Structures are given as structure tokens and as C-alpha cells.
């Protein structure tokens, strides 16, 4: 009955717990045992060089002691080469006071750091950052959450979209070291004033212009703020998403004239409101059209499958990615979308609350996934952690993708509270090394001191900040200093770096490159390495759009690129050990299967 709904509207208001916190999570489900011992994993070690490189940024969450929901969710950060000088610059998102009396005081706005990497005597590059926010023209003063990077106007300069708890902002890169805010003139709705979290630039209709997905979380405002309580003890604690109404995501189509129009409803994305925290673009069924995965906190995830650019259909439930294998909607937060089992299709890794495992969904190739967490070795080590950011990176250059996970609680940890910590949510980072075929080993203890410290991890942005071919990571912490984790991998490894550009100089988000051949020497990698140009995924962060491969043979390498418009090209004779810029149209066209 359709209009029967009108008769019972009043009853809809009567659901229980409208003013209480979300109910307790399902009982922890113990995960499987690790597939192999840590001893078998290659050694990698990360060193925090944030301070020595000048990347001095401390997030302030604006807390006032009232345990406001928003204060423990942020904030993000990420990479972009805004000045096109070949090294990664960084943008770090800042909080804002949540009401009166915030301590510590919150410095105003997010910060842009320019990297002027310096060549060292041994030939390596040492990142050197300067805070150029004032000169950049970026004024992000609302409560910052995350960012998306992409060249929406196809002028060859990376632009910036900032999400907030408050009005979002679009900044156009002028190409002279500065940005101009164009939110108002670029289209209605871009300044979404709700609690936005993730955002992804994606050319969903393959017209050569980047469109924009904006993910919203819940309807939390100071006006409807209310106290919440721990599920077990009943003492005051942070709220969960069930305490507030979920908010709808929005999709904006690029009009190719510097402006956007909202197409959420006509493209089919308005079917329901959901508490979204993460977004990732991937092609789940290999049809060449980008699909959208949205991680919804304590609700079913959405997998918006692209219907040839004409619309989207949520295939989350049938795909097996909406829920975990037991049919539970977990506290989905961060995402890694990449080929994690080396079978040349894109998989999903989603991070969750303590008591739930992080979940590994392996793609069967046609967009039908299986939750393989239990067998992967990723389950049990994640149970005691609340995970947010997740970066897929081949840290040991063995040809398969490893995972770096940022953890930090959202519910008070009794022991830290007892110690008088005003923000008792601290946990440690984790590094999982890929052992091949979808199995991982927890390698955190060997990954360096930064992995032993307890802090409130949030965003993980993967990028090669020193251009040495191994991936580094920018990690943000709630109410703490950001860290720049330089990968000090031991031993030599052969690598190939790629930057995939369109004719206009735009990073071709969504382009895929494949490097096929024998397994990398000494590694256990797959025979085909599939990598996608992406700046989204993880949590509230922006990734390095460049791709890194482990060599599959001695000497020059050959790759095949699938461009976002569906064309394929081969590029041969690429010497390893350096980055190459591959421009669409300059390769050898590939036809056939």
C-alpha cells in the first residue's frame, strides 16, 4: 500500500531510543588465526619525519569536555602536488571549537604545506615543507573533516574540495600557487552545510570531466546534541551514529564549464539516507564504468553500480559488501579499494569498531564479493581496535598490496580514563603484510616506533613523499600532531613509478594500469599487478595519484593502461627506478581482449 504510509506517519515517530545512544554492538566475533607467522614477512620500517621535514601540524578537536559527537571523528589530511613541481605537497584538515570553552585552543583552519624536497648528498630526496596557507588563499574555518583532490576544470592543476561539519568548500587551483574559493559560483549544493565526511572526484559518465560524490554522515548539530551513555556501564560517553538521523549523500555532475549540477536523485543515489563515512571509486564488474562504494557507519554499505553512465543501482546486498558475512551491519568507516589478492580485480577492505573485525571482501570478478576476513589473518588482530584510515600500499615492493591501518577508539577506554587522560581513546597503528592470495600477517611490531605509540589515529594518506619508489604515509591523529611515516625499507628493490595524465595534463583518476609478468624477484606477488589512479578511499584523506609497481623482469618494463574513457594503450620500454609520465594518446593502442 502506497499512501497507507500517510496513515501511520505518527507511528513512525514512535520507534524506541529516539533520544538514546545507539544500542550495543553485536558481541565480538573472534576472528581467524593468522595465516603465517610474522617471521615470514619481509621487513619494513617506518620513521616519523614530520617534524624534521617541517610538516608541523597539530590537530585540535575543539573539545569542551562535553564529549560532543563531532570532536572524536576527525580530521583528515592528504597529498596533492598543487604546484606541479613533481613532489607531493600536503593539506591537513583542522577542527574548530565545538561550542564555548574549547581546550586546547584551536588554531584557525586547515593548512597547506608546500614540499620543496631537497636533494641529499647520497642522491635521495629529503622532503621539506613550508606552511603556505596564507599565500594560498585557502580559508577553511569551519570544523574540517576531510578533502578530495582532483582537477575538475581540466586545466592541469589539482583543485581541492574540503568537507566540513558545516559548509563545504571548493577551491580552484589558479596555477600560480594560489587557490580561489569557487563554491558559490560552481553550483548549488556544493556548500552542503550538513556533516560531510568523505568525497570522491569521479568521472562517472566518462565525458572527460570529473564529477563529485559528497558523503554525509548524520544530522548532528549543537541544537540537537544530547548526552549519550556507554552501552555496558551507562556512564556518559560519546554518541554513536544511531543517536542521530542519517544524512543523504550527494552526487554532482560536472557541466564542463567550471560548474556542477546536483544529480543525486535522477542518478538514483537518493534512495535512502545513510550514515556515510568513507567513499571509494572502483570498477567492481570490469565494465569500464566507475562504481561507487560508500561505507556507512552501523548501516548497510552502498555499492552503487554504474549503469553505463546513465544512473546507479545499489547492489550492495547482492554483491555481499553491504554486510559482513554474518549479515551484520558493522561500523563501516575507512576503505581500501584495490586488488588485495592479486587476481586482477578490485577488492574492498573496510575498517570497523573494536569488537568487530575489519572486513576483507574479495571480488569474484563480476562484482560478487565474499567476506574472507576469517581466512585472511586480518580479523583477529583488528578485534581490539577501532580502525579508521586504511591505506593499500606495497610497502615492501614485492608486488602485492599491504595495508596500513590507523586506529583510535570512539568509546572511552577505562584504563586511560583512570589515568586522567582527557581524551581516553588511544590505540596504535597497524601494518599488515600481504602474504599472497588474500592472506596477511600483522607486522606492526617490526614496523617502527610509530607503530608502538598510542594515539587517536584517523586518516591514512599513502604517497611517495621522497620519490624513492616506496610508499610513505601521512597519518592524522585526532587532537594530536600529524605524522609523516617515511618508508625506510631495507634492501634494494626494483620499482616502476607512473603518473597517468590526460591530454590536458589532468591526473586521470580511474585509469587502471597493469603490469604483467613473472613474479617480482624474491617476492610473492601476483603475476599481474593492477593499480588504479585514485586519490580517494581510506578515511577523510587524499592519496598520491601516482602508481608504483614492483618490477616483473630485469630491464625496461611494459604496462597496459585502461583509460577512463575505455580506451587501452600499451607503453613499453619504461626503465625502472624512476617515475614516468604517461599521457593518453601517446601509447600504442591496444585492441582485443
Amino acid at each position, binding site marked *: *500500500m*502506497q*499512501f497507507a*504510509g*500517510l*496513515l501511520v*506517519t*505518527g507511528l*513512525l*515517530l*514512535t*520507534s*524506541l*531510543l*529516539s*533520544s*538514546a545512544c545507539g544500542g550495543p554492538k*553485536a*558481541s*565480538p566475533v*573472534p*576472528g*581467524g*588465526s593468522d595465516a603465517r607467522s610474522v617471521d615470514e614477512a619481509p621487513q619494513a620500517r617506518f620513521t616519523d619525519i614530520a617534524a624534521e621535514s617541517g610538516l608541523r601540524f597539530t590537530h585540535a578537536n575543539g573539545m569542551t569536555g562535553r564529549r560532543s559527537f563531532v570532536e572524536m571523528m576527525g580530521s583528515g589530511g592528504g597529498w596533492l602536488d598543487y604546484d606541479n613541481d613533481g613532489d607531493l605537497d600536503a593539506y591537513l584538515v583542522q577542527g574548530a571549537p565545538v561550542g564555548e570553552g574549547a581546550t586546547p585552543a584551536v588554531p584557525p583552519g586547515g593548512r597547506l604545506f608546500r614540499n620543496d624536497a631537497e636533494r641529499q648528498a647520497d642522491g635521495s630526496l629529503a622532503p621539506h615543507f613550508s606552511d603556505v596557507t596564507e599565500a594560498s588563499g585557502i580559508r577553511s574555518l569551519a570544523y574540517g573533516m576531510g578533502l578530495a583532490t582532483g582537477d575538475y576544470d581540466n586545466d592541469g592543476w589539482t583543485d581541492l574540495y574540503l568537507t566540513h561539519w558545516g559548509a563545504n568548500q571548493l577551491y580552484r587551483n589558479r596555477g600560480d600557487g594560489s587557490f580561489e574559493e569557487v563554491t558559490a559560483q560552481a553550483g548549488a549544493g556544493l556548500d552542503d552545510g550538513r556533516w560531510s565526511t568523505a568525497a570522491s572526484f569521479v568521472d562517472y559518465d566518462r565525458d572527460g570531466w570529473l564529477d563529485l560524490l559528497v558523503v554525509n554522515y548524520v*544530522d548532528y*548539530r549543537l541544537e*540537537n546534541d544530547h548526552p549519550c*551513555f*556507554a*552501552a*555496558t*556501564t*551507562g*556512564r556518559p560517553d560519546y554518541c554513536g551514529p544511531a543517536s542521530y538521523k542519517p544524512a*543523504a549523500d550527494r552526487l554532482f555532475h560536472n557541466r564542463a564549464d567550471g560548474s556542477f549540477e546536483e544529480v*543525486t*536523485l535522477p542518478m538514483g543515489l*537518493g534512495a535512502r*539516507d545513510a550514515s556515510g563515512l568513507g567513499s571509494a571509486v572502483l570498477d567492481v564488474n570490469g565494465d569500464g564504468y566507475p562504481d561507487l562504494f560508500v561505507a556507512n557507519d552501523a548501516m548497510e554499505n552502498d555499492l552503487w553500480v554504474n549503469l553505463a553512465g546513465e544512473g546507479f543501482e545499489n547492489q550492495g*546486498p*547482492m554483491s555481499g559488501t553491504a*554486510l559482513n558475512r*554474518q*549479515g*551484520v551491519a558493522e561500523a563501516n568507516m575507512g576503505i581500501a579499494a584495490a586488488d588485495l589478492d592479486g587476481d586482477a580485480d578490485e577488492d574492498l577492505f573496510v575498517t570497523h569498531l573494536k*569488537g568487530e573485525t575489519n572486513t576483507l571482501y574479495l571480488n569474484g570478478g563480476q562484482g*560478487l564479493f565474499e567476506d574472507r576476513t576469517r581466512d585472511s589473518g586480518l580479523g583477529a*588482530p583488528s*578485534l*581490539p581496535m577501532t580502525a579508521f584510515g586504511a591505506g593499500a600500499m606495497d610497502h615492501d615492493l614485492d608486488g602485492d598490496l599491504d595495508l596500513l591501518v590507523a586506529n583510535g577508539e570512539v568509546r572511552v577506554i*577505562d*584504563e*586511560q580514563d*583512570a*589515568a586522567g587522560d582527557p581524551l581516553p581513546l*588511544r590505540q*596504535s597503528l597497524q601494518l599488515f603484510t600481504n602474504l599472497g592470495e588474500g592472506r596477511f600477517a600483522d607486522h606492526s611490531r617490526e614496523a617502527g616506533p610509530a607503530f*608502538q*605509540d598510542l594515539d587517536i589515529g584517523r586518516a591514512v594518506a599513502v604517497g611517495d613523499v621522497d620519490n624513492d619508489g616506496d610508499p610513505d604515509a601521512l597519518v592524522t591523529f585526532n587532537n*594530536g600532531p600529524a605524522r609523516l611515516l617515511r618508508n625506510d625499507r631495507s634492501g634494494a628493490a626494483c620499482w616502476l613509478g607512473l603518473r597517468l595524465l590526460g591530454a590536458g595534463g589532468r591526473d586521470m583518476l580511474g585509469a587502471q594500469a597493469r603490469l604483467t609478468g613473472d613474479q617480482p624477484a624474491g617476492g610473492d606477488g601476483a603475476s599481474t599487478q593492477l593499480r588504479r589512479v585514485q586519490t580517494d578511499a581510506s578515511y577523510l584523506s587524499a592519496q598520491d595519484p601516482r602508481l608504483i609497481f614492483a618490477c616483473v623482469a630485469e630491464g625496461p618494463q611494459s604496462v597496459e593502461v585502461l583509460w577512463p574513457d575505455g580506451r587501452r594503450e600499451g607503453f613499453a620500454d619504461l626503465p625502472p627506478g624512476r617515475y614516468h609520465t604517461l599521457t593518453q594518446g601517446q601509447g600504442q593502442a591496444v585492441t582485443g581482449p
Partner: protein
Amino acid sequence: MARRPTADRPLPGRAGRPPQPPKSPPAVRRPADSRRRRWGLAALTLLGLVLLLAALKAWPALTAGPGLPSDAALAAVILPPMDHLSPAVREQINEAHRKVIDLAVAPTAEQAAAWGALGQVLLAYGLDAAEPALRNAVALDPAAFRWPYYLGRHYHLQADIPQARAAYETALAQRPEDIPTQLRLAQLSLDAGEPRQAAARLEAVAAQDPANAYAQFLSGEVAAALGDDNAAIVAYSRALELQPAATRLHYLLAMAERRLGRLEEAAAHLARRGDVPVRLVDPLAAELDGLRQSSQVLVQQAGVAEREGRLTEARQLLERAVALDPQDGAARQNLGLLRYRSGELPAALSDLQAAIALEPGNARFQLSLAVIQEAAGRQDLAEVALKDALRLDPQDVDVQSGLADFYRRGDRCPEAEAHAAAAIELAPSRALLRVQQAVCRVRSGESRAALQGLSAARIDFPADASIADALARVLAAAPDAAVRDPQAAVTLIAPLAQEAKAGIDVLETMAMALASADRFAEAIAYQERALAAAEDRPAWRSALAANLDRYRQGQSAAAPWPDFLYQPEP
């Protein structure tokens, strides 16, 4: 910045155990000064008594089971800070704590019971100090079943699989037939990637209790883990038969069907999936639930019970919550709403008024009050409450749509328009709001605006049946004849009306559209079907009968929606 402990914390009497996840940073042993004074003293007192006792008499030799302490030393229990806990919870923990101290020189069995009771209370509240308390109980009374079982629950909840398994095994040694313990162990085996071990346990359970839904569910999990999806489907289906409320099983069935390539069957199960898990009947776990004395916890448990359809239990929990903490507004509100659903309007009103007195700034409480006042026939007071809610939170979509609906039911549609528009602005993805707006626009003589709004909604929600239905109604029977388009109405509603499960409203809309196209014989047939389907809806039957008469007289419907939509609900 704290640093993770570099070495695992050793536990008494256990050497060479596998590494454990970090349990307690050093901070736990360095409570804040104010708290240290308070709780450190208590802990020291307790520890001192234990040590004194240990010095006074030799402990009997203890025969610990696998994974449990085998020495005589009791573990120190340091209670967590309890400043923020409700007085009832504090008192409950303190009482259990005092009993341990009082019985420090009592016979061993009594000491064990006291330690166990303390551990049980701490476990009920998810506090880590449960572990040493329960371990002491196990050490003092190794023949008891319940203490190692609770210890197993603690480790299980902490995701410490080896220790949970050891503790459950110890419990099972005392009571080999205990079904919950066997099922917990089977679950652990499954989660540890040992489905065949789990299967052996489950066979034993099946011999004892073939109608155990949880065992059937786990059998399905085992079969799925072994790649036998046909067997998994049989077991899940049996579990569903035994516990039809466990709607989460439909998801497991869907995934198993999908793996077998039967996508239609998978889709059918997905359509029926829900979030109610299979319940494991476990008296000892139920005892923990019964111990919780926090109103907030009880409200949350009530929410779970309500979602799972256990309304009597939900009500009892809420009544306990209110009794425990009369100052808990949420408990009052939710109890009021449950009473409202039971038809106890005076009691419900009283609860909501009490909740509002406790939290006068809570818009949701006002909204709930309005629903109950309206049900009680006090439209005047309902309107006051709704306006109060609006004043408190104009950005709340339920408040705006609630007001729009209220005005519609009072046949005050011109007043509804602003609120309907505000609700749509706040929640553009809710299709039903567009229908609500159109219903009132037609009543206000704004048929063209209704048509325009629904046409735009049709673009936004191309697959939404409620929009299609509403638009067809306007096209068929708008009072403004210039808006009508009978052929378009028929085209729009026909696919929905031809579905086997077409509802009363769709059948009625089809009749309306056919009548507007002067196809009265077909209209009559559809209207009669609608009438037959509305057997238990007297108001609707009356409206359907009136239109049927019109069709028989060769007249089309006079309005898209029946008058009763503009009147208070009975």
C-alpha cells in the same frame, strides 16, 4: 603521548602462553591522584587482606583446569574509577566488593562465591576487573561450573580466543552436557578456522537437543566454511524454522544461494533480511543481563528487545529503568511510547510529561507528546507540543513533516504547505514527503502545483511506487480538470496494478484512472477488487464504495484521495 607496552603482561601461574593483545597500559596502575586516593586505598585493603590470609593459612592445593591458575596466589583486583557510574551501579559493585572483604577469612567456598559474584557484576558492566575476580573464584572453587564459564565469556568478549577456549573447556569438564558451553566452543573453533572441530561439537549438541536453533545456525556456518552451500542452506533453513524472528538468517541464506548461482532465490532472501540474530538460550548470560542496574543500559536493552519484537520484555526493562533512575528522561519517553502503542494513553501522557519536565529542551520528547495527545483526541494540545518542538529544533525533518501531517489531518492544508516544503528541503531523499505535499496541495485547490511537484519527484524517484501512484491519482482525478490526463494516468499505474501483490491503493488508483478514461466496466472490476481487499478498513471501504457508485453511474472520481485522509485518524 602514551606508548604501547612492549612486553605482554604476565598472568599468575601461566608460563609460555602465546602473546596476548595489549590489555592495560601502565596508566591503569597509575590512576589520577584523586582517584588513586579513593580506589587505591580500597585495592590495597583488599590485597592486604588477601595476603594476610595467605600468610595465615596454607592454601589447599588447587587443581586447575587447562589455561587457569594452578598456584595458590590470588590475583589483585583493582576496581576502575566509578565517578561517572550511576549510584545504583556504584553501590552494586561496592556491595559485591565489600562482601569479598567481609569473607576474606570465611571458608573457601564462600570466598569463591564472593569473588565470583564480584566478577559477575563487573562482567555485566564490561569492566576489565572482572577477569582477576573470576580467576580468583575459579582458583578457590575449581569444581564450580559457573565461574570458569563467566571467565570464558570475559575472554570471548575480549576476543582472546585461546583463553576463552581454555576457560570454557574447564567449565565443560564440570558439566559436560552443558549446551551453551558446547555451542560457545563450537563458535570459537569456527572462528579459529577449524570447522571440523566445530562440527564434532555440534554433532554432540544435536544428539542432546536436535531443535536447538543456534546449533543449526552454527551447523550452517560449518557447512558454508567447508564449501557445502547446499548443506548450509538446509541448516540455516532449519534454524529459521525454529526461530522465525531471526531475520539475519535470510542474509546467510541469500549468500549461500548466490554462491550456488541461484540469484532469484538469493534476491528473495535478501528482500526478507533483517537484523535479528539467532538467539542462543543461555541462562548464565541471562543472569548477567539481569544484574545490570543502569537505566541507560536498560533503555538500550529495551530498544533491542523492541526491535526484535519482544515487547513485554522491552516494557519490563523500561519500567526497571524508570524505577532505577526516575530522572532519566529517555527511559520515561520510551516507556511512554510503548504504553501508547499498547493503548494506555493516560499513562503514556504522564510518562511524556514527566520526560519533558526532566528535559524541557528536547524536541523529540515534544514530538512524541504530540503524537500521544493527538491519539487522545487533544488536537489543541498536540498542536502546542508540535509548535514547541518546532521552536526547539526547526531543522528536525520529523518535526516539520509531523506538523505538515498534523495540519493535513485537521483539514488545514494551507498551513501544512510551509512545513511540507521545509521537510522536503531537509530530507530531499524521502519520497513519501513529496506525496504528503501533493495530498495537501490538491486539497488546497493547488492541483497544478501538486502535478508539478509529483512530476519532478517522478524524475527524482523513477522507481518509487508511491510517487507513481500519487501522480496517477492526480492525473486521473484532480479537481482541476485541466490537470487531468486519463491516458497518462492509466499508462503510469497499469504496470503496478498488474502485479500480483498490488495493494488496495494501487487497485483503487487503477480504477480511478480507468474511470477517468471512461472505461467504467474495467474500473468497476478493479474497484471491486480493492473493496474486497479492504475488508478490515471501514473508513477506506466507505470511500471505495462511494467511488464504486460513481463508476456505476458513469462518473469518474471527484478527488484523488479520500476525505478520511484529511480527518483525524481513528
